[in-house]
């Protein structure tokens, strides 16, 4: 899994490439943790995300809380969206 981070003023864009599973989730957690406190809006680009498991879902929820709801998921493939639907909280998230 690769994460490409772009920060513009108060907004950050994370582009995740590959498999986000129990083994790789800590990398994403660390990346989000490392963001400057001035960042108040987070956009995660999932166009290249091939797979997500519950460990990844938990990080999304955590990031949502950290950003006070200013989290946007974009470019979800149908299979990733499917997982969010199964988790039952796709409606709570801002998915583009």
């Amino acid at each position: 899994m690769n994460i490409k981070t772009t920060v513009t003023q108060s907004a950050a864009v994370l582009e995740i490439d590959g498999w986000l599973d129990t083994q790789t989730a800590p990398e994403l957690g660390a990346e989000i943790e490392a963001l400057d406190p001035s960042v108040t809006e987070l956009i995660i680009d999932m166009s290249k995300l091939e797979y997500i498991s519950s460990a990844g879902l938990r990080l999304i929820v955590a990031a949502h809380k950290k950003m006070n709801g200013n989290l946007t998921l974009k470019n979800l493939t149908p299979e990733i969206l499917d997982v969010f639907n199964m988790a039952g909280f796709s409606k709570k998230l801002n998915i583009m």
Partner: protein
Amino acid sequence: MKHSILKETVVIFCAAVLIASTVAVIFSFVYNAGLTEKIAGQFARAGAASAARAIEGVDYDALTQSKSRDVYMQTRRTLKSICKSFELKYLYVYEPDTESDSIRYIMTVASDEKQDKMVASERGLGKVISHNLTEQEQYALSGEEHGEAYVEENAYGDVYTWICPIYKDGSVIALVGSDYSTAVLFQRTVKRTLVIIVPMICVLILAILISLFAIRKKILLPVKALSQRMNSFITDKGVGFQPLDIHLDNEIGEMADSFSKMSGDIKNYLANIKTLTAERTRTSAEFDIARRIQNGIVPENTEVLGKFYNAFARAKAAKDVGGDFYDCFEIKDGNLCAVIGDVSGKGIAAAMFMVMTRTMLHDCLSSGYSPADALNNVNNALCTSNPEGMFATVFAAVLNPKNGELCFANAGHTRPVITGENARFLEIDSGIAVGLFEDSDIKDNYINLKKGESIILYSDGVTDIVNKNNEFFGAERLFEVVRSSGDAKIAVKSLEIAASEFAAGAEQFDDYTVLALNYIGDKNILRLVPRESSLPELRKAVLAVTGKNRRGKKIYLACEEAFVNIASYSKATAVETEFEKQDHILRITFSDNGTPFNPVSANIKKKGFDELDSGGMGLSLIRQIAENMWYKRQDNKNILFLEFTLKEE
């Protein structure tokens, strides 16, 4: 030795001599005392009488009136001579005066010269002393000579006294007294006693010494020699077996002869035992070697594990070397060959025939012969060189582990059992044992084993086990024990336990041999360490079965969640993942050795969105993705079955 017989005998003999001597002395002394007393009395009487007659023979008046000194002295010499002759102490002549109670001495003599001189003056002629007449003196005066001497104690010592009257012209004119000394009397008695007793004791002692010598020579020394020989019989073998140098014609001699005979017998016996033991040792060593060779050919346990099968065999020979055999091996094309057989008879001969049969069968099957071809070949070879007319029942099978095809042929052996849902005895002709007839024309048979089914081969030593009620273990009991067995090792072990419980310690009469083949089939098992780092391996395995498509990723998602649950919470140390694909159904089984947890019945706590960052989504995902899931706890393992359809999405 506590006591010597010789010493004891000497003590007994001495005591006997002492007692006998004492009794003899007492009796002899009493007897002699009486005798000498009587003699003393007679001597005193005779002395007194002789003196009286001597006095009567001389002129009394000349004697008493001092008229003739010659007559007096002559008479005194006569009396003295009488006194000595009769061993008297004193002899005296006197005239009693009854009116004045006195006596007047006429003459006194003594045997002893010194005494004689003394009494010559003190009790000489005319000496008067006052004296009351004794009874004896009065008797004498009246003319009666008194019969008894009496003991008189006077100034001259204890004496026996005899009083005798002296007559003149028919009347008593004087008395004569004779004294016999009691001391002399005692001396005589002692002397007489000693004369009798001393020789007697000497003779007695001599007799005893001779007896002791004889006892020592005839009894003690031989017994001692015998005892020493018995004592050192085993320790001193050189001497122990020599004949004893005792030649006696009595019980002891007989005992010595018996002992000599016994030691000779023992010597021969020992020599025999030595020979026998040496022989036994050699035979036993050879038997041990034979047994080791047999154990090398027919090991007590054999396990053959293949990718698609497992096989396990157990053999227990009843005697040192037996006739049962089995063989189980994989050949070049990956097929598994299994042979079980039982040779007629037991012991070395059966073992040799067994080795020959087994080796030839092994060669044939290794070269790719079918079971029937192998059996027919071996049968022909055995028939051409079988002088003892031995034979063996054999069942041979070849399993193709890729498709479960089992090719088998029987030569008179017991019918095997097929285990599984459709457990049954294998239907097969009994056939004819190999080694009996040429051209026995054994045929191959085929069945297809289903996955998980096993074939159990056994010798009649299993079914013929007899318990204490004389009941056979039998094929039916065997069938019930193994019918639901999957794993070959478990089948063999449970049969061994059941058989041993049935026999309950009864002796094993026949060889016991069981061989089980379990057909696993095309099973895909992945063993994982329960850590997150194992996930790439799991992913690779899942996607290899499903293909790397959308459905495959979802199935993997369920697998990841199940695996992470086990890895994070169960404390398991090993996880096995088994994949079983049948048409469009994929079954994935997770078994772990962790703490019991049932993910099927576990309640999923409904959480709010904000709480979901703490987890709790995994189980829910699994339940949504898997078409079916069930759980069981078995052998201390959590076993979770997940069933997926491999539909396109």
